[in-house]
């Protein structure tokens, strides 16, 4: 596959290195002369010096035949516009853009630049992952398909531990797709009995999170509103 990577910072350089190792054809575009000279020592003819915001630079990199453009500069506006032009002017099939400031993400969406990747969001997700029982972790949002995949950890007091999966009344628009137990994952059948410590993965329509939390959460104590 022919791939153009824009920005030879730490992200771009390492990305290029990995892609080259996987036998892809890669051109990295870097606009900072000193950085370019450094990276060129290793990547040689796979690096091009120039400002990829300029159309003729992209054309010199051969964007007309690129199958993937990855924009990972430290400048969100650059990343957004390079990807927009790649897709809309040069019909590049796939693009990936880096979001530096998560507050700019709506702008990426507005310009149709998807998917976009933000380190801040990724780290937040990892943090979320450390959140204890019943905190619902979003693993994947399939925005176009209007589906999401979530993960929950079952505690000792969960309503569903000790029960068969077949006996659970899963909320409409949700489906249990896998169980992680003692580090191993499997697809549960109707006879699977859920245990405390299980991590369950479910796919659901957006907005069903609360129903699921209620079903899998702790059984109500006796001191609630009676």
């Amino acid at each position, binding site marked *: 596959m022919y791939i153009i990577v824009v920005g030879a910072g730490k992200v771009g350089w390492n990305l290029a290195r990995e892609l080259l190792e996987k036998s892809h054809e890669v051109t990295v575009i870097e606009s900072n002369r000193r950085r370019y000279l450094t990276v060129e020592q290793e990547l040689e003819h796979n690096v091009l010096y120039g400002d990829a*915001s300029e159309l003729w630079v992209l054309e010199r990199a051969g964007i007309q035949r690129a199958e993937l453009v990855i924009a990972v500069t430290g400048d969100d*506006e650059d990343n957004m*516009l390079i990807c927009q*032009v790649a897709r*809309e002017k040069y019909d590049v099939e796939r693009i990936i853009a880096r979001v530096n400031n998560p507050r700019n993400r709506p702008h990426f969406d507005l310009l149709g630049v998807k998917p976009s990747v933000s380190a801040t969001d990724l780290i937040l997700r990892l943090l979320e992952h450390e959140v204890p029982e019943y905190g619902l972790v979003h693993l994947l949002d399939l925005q176009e398909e209007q589906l999401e995949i979530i993960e929950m950890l079952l505690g000792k007091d969960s309503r569903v531990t000790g029960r068969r999966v077949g006996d659970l009344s899963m909320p409409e628009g949700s489906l249990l797709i896998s169980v992680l137990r003692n580090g191993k994952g499997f697809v549960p059948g109707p006879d699977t009995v859920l245990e405390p410590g299980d991590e369950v993965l479910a796919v659901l329509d957006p907005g069903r999170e609360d129903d699921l939390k209620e079903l899998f959460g702790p059984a109500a104590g006796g001191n609630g509103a009676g």
Partner: protein
Amino acid sequence: MFILIVGCGRVGSSVARSMLSEGHEVSCLDEDPESHTRLEVGLDQGWEDLGGRFTVGTGLETDALVAAGIEKADAFIASTNGDNTNIVISQIAQRRYEVPTVIARILDPLRAEWYRHQGLNTVCPTRVAIDMLESAVREGARREVA
């Protein structure tokens, strides 16, 4: 008409003054608080006293755009010193806030042309300079021959 101008440099501030003197409502947004001074060059009254508005912030911050009144703007001018910024914020004005008239200053002639084809109203000062220089040279050559 309510006009929002983002980027209050030499170009933005001149347009702002002209539009205000022609009786339009004018609001300016610039990240540099000092650019307010530039607005008042040649005026014998303060910018606000004459009815103008000025907000500090960048065009990528939606809060700043809203504070500057984008939601009721009839016209939006992107005249910061960065092409990329102007292209992005004018598309935000057009697509997200549906401002009826959106004008972007783009120095790069190639991109100015392409975005014009995409439906953006672009003004390219470089193109104007090229055209003027070329015709000045041709004019000179013609006189030489004559």
